[in-house]
């Protein structure tokens, strides 16, 4: 079965719900005290993992669309990508407001002193650029350069799990799992890319021999 644009509407509606539900869950657990007496670290970690989970889902879209020949799925990438940005923004907002308590001088110091924050900050700057250029008007204006810019999402995918791994005191298993997942998803693309370039070379050879 091919998914149609009608299906797409409902799929997107479900995606919105799935992406927003954890925010409600977070608010409830903080208000009820289930997140602990001082849930600052919990909130920062939760929103950060939220961004990473959404990023993993985002990177699964293209392989899934190819595998099941559902090209229309590609149209959900913008929505999911913007949720990555939204969760990353909440993550950084929580860090600045709840942990640093808006001491901006500290923010600069921390970015310089904590290398993992620098890594996260670079990833976030890229996400800002990608989110702004996700507007259709801008996308049209940018032409081919749009795709070039948006390939930087792969750098984000590499930086974010490094940022996670580097930030923890000793609990490296969870970030390690994410690093493996991301490597897997990127490797999938490399092999697809290889196959594509092989087909191109074959085509070229065919053409030149004719």
């Amino acid at each position: 079965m091919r998914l149609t644009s009608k299906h797409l509407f409902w799929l997107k509606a479900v995606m919105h719900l799935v992406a927003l539900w954890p925010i409600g869950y977070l608010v409830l657990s903080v208000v009820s005290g289930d997140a602990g007496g001082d849930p600052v670290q919990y909130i920062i970690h939760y929103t950060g993992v939220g961004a990473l989970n959404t990023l993993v889902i985002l990177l699964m879209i293209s392989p899934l669309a190819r595998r099941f020949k559902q090209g229309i799925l590609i149209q959900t990438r913008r929505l999911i990508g913007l949720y990555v940005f939204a969760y990353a923004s909440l993550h950084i907002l929580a860090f600045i407001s709840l942990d640093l308590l808006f001491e901006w001088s500290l923010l600069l110091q921390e970015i310089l002193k904590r290398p993992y924050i620098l890594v996260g900050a670079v990833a976030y700057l890229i996400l800002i650029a990608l989110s702004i250029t996700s507007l259709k008007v801008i996308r049209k204006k940018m032409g081919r350069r749009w795709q070039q810019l948006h390939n930087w999402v792969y750098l984000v995918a590499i930086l974010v799990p490094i940022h996670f791994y580097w930030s923890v005191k000793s609990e490296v298993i969870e970030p390690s799992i994410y690093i493996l997942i991301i490597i897997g998803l990127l490797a999938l693309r490399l092999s697809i890319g290889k196959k594509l370039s092989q087909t191109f070379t074959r085509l070229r050879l065919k053409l030149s021999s004719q």
Partner: protein
Amino acid sequence: MLEEELKGRNMHFHKKPSWDKFKDSDVTPEEVFNDRRRILKQMGFLGAGALLSSNANAGIFDLFGNKKEKQTFLRSDLPHTQNTEYDSVLNGALTPESKIITHNNFYEFGTGKSDPAENAQGFKVDPWKLVIDGLVDNPLTLDYDDLMKLFALEERTHLLRCVEAWSMVVPWVGFPLASLLKKAGVKSHATHVAFETLFDPEQMPGQKSRLMGGGIHYPYVEGLTINEAMNPLSFMAVGLYGKTLPPQNGAPIRLVVPWKYGFKSIKSIVRIRVMDKQPPTSWNQLASREYGFYANVNPNVDHPRWSQATERRIGEGGLFSAKRINTQMFNGYGEQVADLYSGLDLTRHF
């Protein structure tokens, strides 16, 4: 629910009220209902690790009054006197008890800050056995009652500065470590004191699963030099806020060394060993570049991955009421302990 109660209800509802149009088969299947916590956890936005570990945070249904089925560790009042000698160091109001007992680093019960309060309520502290041995004249074995009654208990309020750059103000109840060591009689050539936490993977899920325990080699061990241990500031706490400690704070007995980062203040101690060499310490074993043996609070020596110049003080009020304050050398206890380190390069011996 009791059977009588159920019967009573049935008698009450001879006829189903009009709104109760659901058949039994319409309601949630029992296995789904009983498994709701796990199901809801999986619906929540958890990290990859949390999905693998069955011991994540409380389920969302706790929000709707299911709390009564959770057991709570019972704490009892401790008779004590007041010691206000160190109060001049305090630079803020007491941290509320509710925050002190729900925001803990105790990886034996999980690495999340609320995990210990969640997972430690069934922890057994009585019977307990604390052994003091090694280079002592009279090795001691103390049971639970000894811990609570052998020494006169006093209340002292101390700053607690975590290496993660947050801090609290905690009213501990306990006795000086020196009293305990004097009772055992420390031999003259002793140089260090080693401490060890209980090893009981059945009770401490973090010791069972590496995912929950954060990769520490258990049992957790800590150590002090003999001079640090004999300093009047070094304290054995058996209570806080006038009551016995809850498990998440290190029941039944823990160390409190307020001029050092929190991880030195080892919890739920079963063994104290007097030695003539420096003992291994858990965080130092795990990452010696980041955590030294001394671990004195020092705003001028940063953790390799973050600054130690300031700290987030956890006090009263909501999320936004916390304050950033400057961290003080030796956490403000320089007058009591600075001379222990004269001649020592604290940037090297961090």
